């Protein structure tokens, strides 16, 4: 059970992030979560949106270089130590995290952790085995 994430290449210059946000907004696409990895020259914007296929087609039409990536989303209690518990489980199984980010659900006292693993299948087995709830697109894209 994975979630589609759109990764977009952007140059580190004024207005690029704004342009993507505006294009998505104008198309009525809602951003559920995002993270920006940046270097001095460029950045990689990672987005989870409510209509991934539409967002992908629209951004591509505007000439952006992007890639659809499968990420793993898990739900943890929004309390101190919530993230640490998941990370120590992964570390114990020597599973590497390529990158991750998190967001908080407004309506529940839950937090959502989004992971990119180099071996997603094994990571998901470990998480499931420990009773951690994996979220599908139906769980997080319906806004």
């Amino acid at each position, binding site marked *: 059970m994975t979630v589609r994430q759109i990764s977009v*290449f952007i*140059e580190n210059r004024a207005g*690029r992030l704004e342009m993507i946000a505006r294009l998505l907004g104008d198309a009525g696409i809602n951003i559920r979560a995002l993270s920006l990895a940046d*270097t001095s020259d*460029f950045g*990689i914007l990672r987005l989870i949106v409510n209509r991934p296929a539409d967002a992908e087609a629209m951004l591509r039409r505007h000439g952006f*270089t*992007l*890639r659809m*990536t499968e990420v793993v989303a898990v739900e943890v209690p929004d309390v101190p130590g919530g993230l640490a518990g998941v990370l120590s489980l992964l570390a114990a199984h020597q599973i590497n995290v390529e990158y991750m980010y998190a967001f908080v659900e407004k309506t529940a006292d839950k937090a959502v952790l989004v992971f990119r693993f180099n071996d997603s299948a094994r990571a998901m087995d470990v998480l499931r085995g420990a009773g951690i709830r994996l979220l599908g697109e139906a769980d997080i894209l319906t806004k």
Partner: protein
Amino acid sequence: MTSRCFERKLETMSCDERAALQGDRLRAVVARVYEHVPFYRRRLEQHGIHPDDIRSLSDLSRLPFTTKTDFREEYPFGLFAVPMSRVVRLHASSGTTGKPTVVGYTRRDIDLWARTCARTLACAGGSRNDVVQVAYGYGLFTGGLGMHYGGEKLGATVIPMSGGNTKRQIMLMQDFGTTLLCCTPSYALEIAEVATDMGVDMRKLKLRAGLFGAEPWSARMRQAIEERLGLQAFDIYGLSEVIGPGVSSECDAHCGLHVFEDHFYPEVIDPESGQPLPDGERGELVFTCLTKEALPLLRYRTRDITRLMRAPCPCGRTLVRMERVSGRTDDMLIIRGVNVFPSQIESVLLEIEGTEPHYLIVVDRRENMDELEIQVEVNERVFSDEVRGLEALRQKVASEIFSILGLTAKVTLVEPRSIERSQGKAKRVIDKRVL
């Protein structure tokens, strides 16, 4: 004013006498390449020319041209006119793609080269009493070893410094009493900068003249170099395909570069039609090597733009003069003295991306040093959604470019379509250098 000549008789003979000598040499060289270079035999036969058809200089324009592409197709030694057992030296410069342009020399060619480089030094007033610091690179590049042998042939004292290590260059100039400096004009300015930082007043040293070449420069740079280093600057010209440095050189009249035409016969042609142009008109410079043994080229197209001037020179030399090169007919760039073709960079990107690359070459000069930046559009084939993946891509492009050109390039990843496309064909080069 009659300045010093290394080979006075050959440099000051009457034009008629020289034309007869050149005609004899032309006949001999055409016969020789027809006999010994399969490439030229084929080429001449394709044009319906037999060596017996070439009787004097006026027949030269009937001969086909030789180009850099021919070097690539005959790589590495196909244009050589002697067996490898007679080749005592190889040098190489950039080709238009990955493979270099290879040139070879027999023992006699090395001696000829030393003599034309000695003429070059003598043009700048050099003699056996001079101390010559050679700060051109030594190695496959012809600049260093060419001027080195020239200095020795002249009987001067040669300091084989090669490029770089600027503080040490300045220290030895002070301690050894260097009188003649050979380097690229941009390196001359770098020396001036470093000397200022070190608190050394270069004008108080024994430096008397500088022989600068291997890259384009301007009257403004010449003035800055002369003021800051306290020397007289001389423009020198050469290319490895013809021999290296020692093809032509400015004398102290500073009105063009005397071509050592008894060995390297120059023509200026219309680059579009290939037709020879009358003296005084600007066009592409073409050389025929009249006397070289290992690599005697017929009508080699240099892609350099200049014009020829035959009015008598106050220095007494009767050798034709060429104006300082004002540009190129192709897209070759000279960056830190290295010949760079955009096609070389394109082939690196094509290899890595596996598709038609979109890129922009930006050349700038900061603190007298050329800087090369390659902007590469990131397409979906190479896009990684991890920073380290993109950093690895950047590193790979930079290291491939370094291995082909020997130049460090800053590689910048940019968004698709951020590089301007004009009429379907992208503008590939922005040269911001102010010479």
